[in-house]
């Protein structure tokens, strides 16, 4: 089981240098990865300081050697996939092959979409997401690539260099479990970073049964024998650490491979303390 931190891309720590420092601290404190949100205008309010995650991840890559780095998640529908292909490959080289790309639909009502004239209709965004994944994988291949999609067209382009990682930078699909779209998408990618659609309220934890079902689905759909990551969590640590450890253990036993702890934006000293306590290890 690997342990990741999910950091907001806003708040008092909304600055690339600070994030680089926190990433270095995370590496020293035993974490296996640090992941950033990806917003242009942060959901927490108009005046929230945000930063470009790619610039921040670069600063973080230069201050670390071992931990994985990435976004959870980048909504592809508001990006040009070829620009993103370049950002990720350049970062993969600068980090010596440690990038992970989380991808998602975004929310039509997000400030990032609605207020910047981006696509707000869910089905079109889903199509753009699927096409963008095709384009990313094609461009990362380093082979001559062409694509005729509804939203994206590429004409005989060869992008070099390839990523450091082989066969490619892992793509983790975000979305709500057990929605069909994210599941289908995940089967052709390299991992999941799902949230569970709650029956009531605004949060529900994945259960071991959920993980078993997800794993079975992916194994059935996937022809590749390549590694597949199932990341769970994404919320703050609860007060009862023993119960949390048992919970994480149960999901690891069911097949989850990454446990993600979300840190809300807070005072810098508080964040340092949270990071330094290290992950809650279930196994």
């Amino acid at each position, binding site marked *: 089981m690997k342990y990741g931190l999910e950091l907001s891309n806003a708040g008092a720590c909304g600055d690339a240098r600070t994030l680089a420092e926190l990433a270095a601290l995370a590496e020293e404190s035993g974490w296996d990865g640090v992941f950033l949100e990806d917003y242009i*205008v942060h959901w927490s309010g108009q005046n929230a300081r945000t930063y470009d995650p790619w610039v921040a991840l*670069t600063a973080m*890559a*230069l201050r670390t050697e071992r931990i994985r780095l990435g976004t959870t998640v980048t909504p592809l529908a508001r990006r040009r996939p070829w620009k993103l292909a370049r950002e990720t490959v*350049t970062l993969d*080289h600068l980090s010596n092959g440690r990038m992970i790309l989380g991808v998602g639909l975004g929310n039509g009502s997000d400030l990032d979409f*609605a*207020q910047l004239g981006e696509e707000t209709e869910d089905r079109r965004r889903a199509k753009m997401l699927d096409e963008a994944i095709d384009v990313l994988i094609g461009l990362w291949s380093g082979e001559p690539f062409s694509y005729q999609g509804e939203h994206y067209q590429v004409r005989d382009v060869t992008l070099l260099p390839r990523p450091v990682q082989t066969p490619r930078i892992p793509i983790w699909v975000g979305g709500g479990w057990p929605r069909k779209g994210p599941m289908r998408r995940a089967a052709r990618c390299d991992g999941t970073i799902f949230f569970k659609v709650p029956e009531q309220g605004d949060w529900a934890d994945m259960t071991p049964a959920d993980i078993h079902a997800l794993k079975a689905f992916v194994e059935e759909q996937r022809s590749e024998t390549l590694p597949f990551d199932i990341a769970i969590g994404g919320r703050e640590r609860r007060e009862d650490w023993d119960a949390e450890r048992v919970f994480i253990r149960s999901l690891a036993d069911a097949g989850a491979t990454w446990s993600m702890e979300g840190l809300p934006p807070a005072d810098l000293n508080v964040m340092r303390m949270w990071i330094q306590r290290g992950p809650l290890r279930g196994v």
Partner: protein
Amino acid sequence: MRYGITLPYEDDPRALVDLAVEAEAAGWDGVFVWDGITWNDAWVTLAAIAACTERVRLGTMLTPISRRRPWKLAQESATLDRLSNGRLVLPVGLGAPDTGFANFGEETDRKIRAQLLDEGLDILNGLWSGQPFSYQGQHNQIDNVTFAPTPRQSPRIPIWVVGAWPRMKSMRRVLRCDGILPAMMDEQGKSRDTTPDDIRAIKQYVEANRSETTPFDIVMEGETPGDDRERAATVVRPLAEAGVTWWLENVWATPREQGGLEGMRKRILQGPS
């Protein structure tokens, strides 16, 4: 006169970061990287250079706004300006056709690219201000967005723009910005070399017509020998006297016949003219 280097494409972005660090130590004032889909990402590369340097100015050469979302550009430039402690400049233009346009279905029509450039400049200025910003353009619509944080530099990251002299539409755009990369046109509309007299004419025009109070730079690119200060001076001195404030050494022009990366490194270590 300040001296920068323009670095070309290298497969390994770390090689460019190393060259930038050496350039800073050798006394260069700025480091610029190519910005296009054909090459490694300029912004990630500049972020790495920013993290490894302290003094040199940083910038792309150059960013064609027409194939970017201006709000993404606003965010990455502001973040980079903060990371670098206020060392970014932003050269912009219509962009050369072979830097990633047609093959990705991007806009190729020159007039539309100019509109996108102008709207992009409006949006950069609006978002960088940190004030609530709305915009109703032909191509871009923004509804009450407040960006935070603003760039480190105040009032903004200096914008250098390609200016076709003496085309008035192009020069009016120059007046809104903080620097010009002159592109001279002859009577047939073909490009020609820039002379010191051209620079004097441009400088006079800008001083007479510009209402912005920020400093204004006149930027030229070229190659000078690093091992012959006198010959280098014959190129640069007349331009400096005429009003050029930045000289960008195209170190990429030197190397292929002279050993690639090592050739570039040699020129960089020789320092500015």
